Structures are given as C-alpha cells and as structure tokens.
C-alpha cells in the first residue's frame, strides 16, 4: 500500500488493523459500582425507553393472551348480534312507515271521492231549486 503524500501509511484497513482499532476498551472507572447502585434502586432498574411498552408485557403470559383473544371473540359476537338487531329494527320501522304512507294515500283518495260527491249533490240541489222557483213565477 502506498500513500500519495510523503508520510507512509503504517497499515491499511486490513483485518489486523481493524482488530487493533476495535480491541476491547476498559469500562470507565466505577462502572460496576454504578450498575450495582442502579440494581439496588428499584426505580432506576427499568431502562429508559422501555417504560411505555411495559404494559404490553402482560401479553407475554399465555393465559393473558388467551383471555385477550376470548374477549375479542366475545366482543365480535356481541357486536354482531347488536348490529343485526339494530338492522332488523330499522327494517321494521321502514316497513311501518311505508304502510302508514299507503294508508294516508288511500284515506286521501277516499276523501277526494266523498268531497266530489258532496259537490255534485250540492250542484244538483241548486239546479233543482232554481227550476222550481222559475215554475212558481210562471
């Protein structure tokens, strides 16, 4: 290996150079004592960043997983039954509404017929009265 500028490189990124560069370093002074202090202090045992996911650890227990799965199944079944009932009630309400509209239409048409008959009777009566009065005058 050569280097362009005057100073020769003693090594290159070969395996031995990498081994030398990445050799183990001693941990800082008092490292073990600080670990012990954290072990002895319950609040600091939990590493930072794992606190948020701690509640999920409950699912590590098989019974909890089965219970959660059963709860989801029950919720799905109950939800399905509730949804079906709501749909059925809605359909019944819609049918009753259609029946009511039909009944109102029939009643309306009957009223129209009765009204036109009354008008016809009244018109006939007026015509009869007028002809009778003409005859009396004559």
């Amino acid at each position: 290996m050569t280097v362009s500028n005057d100073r020769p490189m003693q090594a290159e990124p070969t395996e031995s150079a990498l081994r030398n560069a990445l050799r183990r370093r001693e941990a800082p002074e008092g490292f073990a004592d600080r670990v012990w202090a954290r072990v002895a202090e319950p609040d600091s045992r939990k590493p930072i960043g794992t606190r948020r996911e701690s509640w999920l650890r409950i699912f590590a227990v098989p019974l909890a997983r089965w219970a959660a799965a059963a709860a989801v199944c029950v919720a799905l079944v109950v939800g399905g039954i509730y949804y079906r009932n709501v749909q059925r009630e809605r359909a019944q309400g819609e049918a009753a509404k259609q029946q009511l509209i039909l009944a109102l239409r029939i009643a309306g048409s009957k009223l129209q017929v009765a009204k036109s008959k009354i008008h016809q009777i009244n018109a006939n009566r007026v015509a009869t009265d007028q002809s009778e009065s003409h005859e009396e005058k004559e």
Partner: protein
Amino acid sequence: MAELISAEQFPAAAEGDFAGIVRRYQAMVYSIALHFLADPSASEEVAQDVFLQLHANLSRLKSEEHVKFWLRKVTSHRCIDWQRRRRPQAVSLEDAPDPPALNRAEDPWLSRRLRQLVASLPEKPRLIVILRYQEDMDAEDIAEVLAMPIATVKSHLQRSLAMLRAKAARAIGEVTI
C-alpha cells in the same frame, strides 16, 4: 462458575456472582456500545441498561456461555435502539456519509481513523464489523446474535470492508490497497 453447575442451578449462582459477571463482561459490553455509538457517556448508559436487564433476566439463563451470547445480543439491539432514537433515518451502505477529512497532524493513529470510519457505516454493517473484529466472532455466530441469515452477514462484511477501504482512501489520501 458455569462449568461446575447445572443449568437449573445457574440462575441462583449467577445472582450470587452478579458482581463477578459485571466485572468479566463490562469491557465487552461497553466496547461494543462505544465502537457502535462513538459516544462514551451514551455507551456507559447503554452498558448499564444491558446489565440491569441481565439482572432482571438471570433466571432465564442457563450457563456462562449463554450469558455471553445474551449480552452480545442485547447490547447489539440496545445500540441500534439508541441510535434510532437519536437519529431515526436509516442510511444505505452506499449513501453513508464519509467522515470528515482526517487531519494527520491532529490524529496520527490509524486505529483512531479506522474507528471513525467504522462509526460512519450504517448500523447493521457497523455492528457486524464490530462483532467480527472486536469480539472475533465468525459469521455464523454473528448471524445468530443479530438474527439474520449467514449469507447476509457475509455480504455485509465484504461490502463493509470494501467501503472502509474506499472511505480510507478518500479520507487519508491516495491509498493503494
């Protein structure tokens, strides 16, 4: 300790010898974190967290070898977690930034330069290089620790070495390897 006791007895013995375990493996754990994160205070915090997690999981461990494997694995994952919290975006091997040009007068040691170059690699290749050359692990063991195929480890290793040579050539000068 581990050679003389059974897997069932190991957790209790390890609990009693936890200080000894910390002493035996503190350099390994701290060095993996330091070479990965290139930050002494962050590395100490990660290393402390790893040993706290070890203390909480001693009952699951079966032997001294298992402890060593577990420590390497958890340290690797914690380093990646730390890195992602600090710098969320991932970079590909090719897109990894070059380290700043190295000043020969201020930094005469090749080892230091190589550590800088290693620290500039993307996270997975960096971990693989650290486990290969710091811990002298073979590709199979690295694959087990990092839960990835052996072929992927070998590929990362080859590409990382090529990348390190290229980066060294650019950072140091015209290096012929």
